[in-house]
């Protein structure tokens, strides 16, 4: 057990260190969601308060958008896990790992945890940024619960991306899949708008969309300022989503992860 933990730590730290390889990328990946929130969020700044309160349950659309945008950005973070795996396949580093007594699922877990950690880097910066626009930080338990929910979402989404590229070394696949599934998943979730005005078929998709779980859960915490009024069933769904995909991913990695 200790051996496996050490292997996971070694590979995970490598993933994290590689995240800081290029500071410019870090800056851009942190600033990009903040810009999204500021520009897109400000689009309703002149809307009547009554409309905002009726439609978004808050008079500050940025407060509404915050959890949705952070959740949606986890979709793009998921892509990093598969890009990192393809990089290791292409460079031969995966072979270096696989001639050591490291089980395939440890490689999978390290990649998923690494990319999810990368996704979390933006969270404190974005929170600090939106405070300038009048969004108050929720109480610590609520804030922690939302961050954990985002992490669970990221674990699940990174697992999906890795599963798709487990047997492939084609750089194009993660990008194509990202373009194919990220936007539909974002727009069919409650990340940008409440689902009450969706057509019925889109509401069904939204109800099964993990981005909705994280967006709604986080939004309830941010708008109310605490975790008491949040619907914890979404947190449970996210936990099941992450756990199920991690288990499937570990199993598939054990069976199919191979060097070329």
């Amino acid at each position, binding site marked *: 057990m*200790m*051996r496996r933990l*050490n*292997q996971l*730590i*070694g*590979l995970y*730290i*490598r993933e994290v*260190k*590689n995240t800081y*390889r290029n500071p410019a990328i870090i800056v851009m990946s942190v600033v990009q969601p903040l810009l999204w929130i500021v520009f897109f969020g400000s689009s309703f700044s002149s809307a009547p308060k009554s409309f905002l309160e009726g439609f978004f349950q808050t008079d500050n659309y940025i407060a509404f958008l915050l959890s949705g945008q952070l959740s949606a950005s986890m979709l793009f973070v998921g892509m990093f896990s598969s890009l990192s795996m393809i990089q290791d396949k292409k*460079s*031969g*580093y995966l*072979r*270096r*790992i*696989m*001639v*050591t*007594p*490291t*089980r395939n699922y440890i490689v999978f877990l390290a990649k998923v945890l690494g990319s999810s950690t990368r996704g979390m880097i933006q969270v404190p910066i974005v929170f600090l940024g939106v405070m300038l626009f009048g969004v108050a930080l929720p109480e610590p338990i609520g804030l922690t619960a939302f961050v954990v929910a985002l992490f669970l979402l990221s674990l699940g989404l990174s697992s999906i991306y890795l599963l798709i590229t487990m047997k492939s070394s084609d750089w194009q696949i993660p990008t194509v899949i990202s373009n194919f599934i990220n936007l539909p998943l974002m727009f069919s979730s409650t990340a940008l708008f409440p689902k009450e005005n969706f057509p019925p078929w889109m509401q069904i998709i939204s109800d099964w969309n993990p981005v909705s779980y994280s967006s709604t859960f986080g939004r309830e915490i941010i708008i109310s300022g605490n975790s008491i009024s949040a619907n914890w069933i979404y947190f449970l769904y996210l936990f099941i989503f992450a756990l199920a995909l991690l288990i499937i991913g570990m199993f598939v990695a054990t069976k199919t992860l*191979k*060097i070329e």
Partner: protein
Amino acid sequence: MLGPNGAGKTTIIKMLTGLSNPTGGKAIIAGYNVAKDALKVKENIGWVSSEVILDDSLTSMDNIWIQSKLHNLGKKWKEKAITLMKYFELDERDDKKVGQFSTGTRKKLEITMALLHEPKILFMDEPTIGLDANTRRLLWNLIKKINRLYGVTIFLTTHYIEEADVLCDNLAIINHGKIIAFGTAQELRTLVGGDLLEIDFFKVFDPAVIKDIDGVIEIRQEEGDRENETKTENSLKLFVKVKDAETVLPELISTVARIQPNIVKSIKIEKPNLESVFLELTGMRIVEIEEKMDKQFYTKARR
């Protein structure tokens, strides 16, 4: 393990290091079956790749630390690493990213990582491929020292005959996925059983006229893909195995000259060596097989 590119050397290393499953047969490495106990095999082996594989964005110590974690080395990893790095004349305080190192230094670092967990067997897959002559010789000395000092068995693949001759106590020659000879270099040389004359003629003639010369053991015409050869139609190349080249050659030349004067273009004498062993066993030189495979590859690619 000596053989041309495409002979199956890397495939064998993949199987022996537990990276791919053999389709048949059984291989035991350090006492463990590679198909059933791959993880145990991996605990006991080190691996050095043909193209240096490191995380170029990390420092040498970062790379070594990750390797130590993968082998669960505990707190003593740094002590071991520093000892090995000093031995290989690497600076443990160098905090440059390894991508900035020279190929030779990167190779040394890779060997350090491969020896960190004190493996019983070290696999080196064409370790000197792509290196310049100086670095190659440096690495040869290093490999000999590792073998002597650490007592680790080294399983090395190469397509360089000189390298196999210089480094290996035991040699297996592989071609088309099959081991065709095994033994020490000295034992393999005895397989040839004489000197080899490689003679190019300007004109074709009947080789039977030289077969009765005293000391001639065997005559073979050059093999190969006739369609793709660039020779003129009238030229001829013979491989003549003789007991002793210096004794046989004068009579051979005068016999040929009596029948057709001035047709000898060039003569190459080859004393028994691994090149002639390979030629004896396969009918082609390593370089010829590789050229033939390259031609086939490009022909396929053009289609």
